[in-house]
């Protein structure tokens, strides 16, 4: 095989199949969904604030840590090391990120409503609308671009002979959108700390 083509196709590895959705994590996701539902249903203020603050903190923290710390380290690893790390890391992200996003967004609206920030006459209203726009951009990037790529990479890695070039192409989506996500997350930190301190 020519070197260029050989570089595109990773050799068959003696490795266990990747579980795209880690089933052991699903009970935790179920518990989080129930916690959010009960908090909204019973107007449980502590539950709403807990889900919003913890979910939002994890969402922002994980996004920035992965984008600014893990990503550059991963980029400097050898291809087999990168593949091995991704095979263990990405399935966990498949259940962690949608869960923290759900916790943050579902309760955020309720927290804003209970604090009166949704009212147009409230001085925080404009900040809140800006925050919704920031979240909207992040949602489209995450759900429309990154999550499909994440799952496609995991499927590709489960093939007997994964196509390294294709995985690299899909992973480029993370690099291209890292800047947008980083800026949006920093904007979220500024908006939320400003809202919390007024």
């Amino acid at each position, binding site marked *: 095989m020519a070197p260029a083509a050989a570089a595109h196709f990773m050799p068959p590895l003696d490795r266990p199949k990747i579980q795209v959705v880690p089933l052991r994590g699903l009970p935790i996701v179920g518990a989080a969904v129930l916690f959010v539902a009960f908090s909204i249903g019973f107007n449980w203020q502590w539950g709403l604030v807990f889900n919003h603050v913890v979910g939002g903190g994890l969402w922002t923290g994980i996004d920035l840590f992965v984008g600014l710390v893990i990503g550059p380290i991963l980029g400097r690893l050898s291809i087999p090391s990168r593949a091995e790390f991704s095979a263990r890391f990405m399935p966990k992200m498949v259940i962690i990120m949608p869960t923290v996003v759900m916790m943050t967004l579902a309760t955020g609206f309720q927290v804003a409503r209970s604090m009166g920030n949704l009212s147009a006459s409230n001085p925080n209203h404009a900040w809140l609308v800006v925050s919704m726009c920031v979240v*909207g951009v992040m949602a489209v990037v995450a759900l*429309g671009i990154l999550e499909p790529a994440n799952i496609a990479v995991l499927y590709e890695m489960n093939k007997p002979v994964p196509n390294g070039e294709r995985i690299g192409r899909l992973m480029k989506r993370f690099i291209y959108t890292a800047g947008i996500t980083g800026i949006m997350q920093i904007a979220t930190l500024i908006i939320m700390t400003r809202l919390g301190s007024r």
Partner: protein
Amino acid sequence: MSSASSSPPMPDADRPYPPIGWFSTGALGLVVVGGILLASYAPRVAPLALATTLLCVAIGLLIVAAVQLSRLKVFAWGTFTTVFKWALLAYVITAGMIEFAFVHDHTRGSSLVIVTLMLVVFALSVPTTIAFTVARFADPN
């Protein structure tokens, strides 16, 4: 080795497809904008004409994506179906949670109908994008 062996062994998987993922992501983007519009007016009633227009265009984009999908002859339908149904389950739960929040907040009438339809578009568009992205690189069965 022959020159044939230096070409990728699975050329079908990388051949160009219609921009189905972009249409479904476009539909998602429009309902997100519509959702922001409705939420930014809450608890007042948002201008429903603009929200309805965004919703109609989103539904149109989703229909275009579905039509283009149905026209694909060589495609990994098995993989698409498997991924789509699991993703649909996940996003129906997410959409259900958002719907619950709106109903709980006493959203009623036309606003609730528009929110519900936007959530239906949301719950269909994300699984479509995910399943198409995965299946386009899978071996057609």
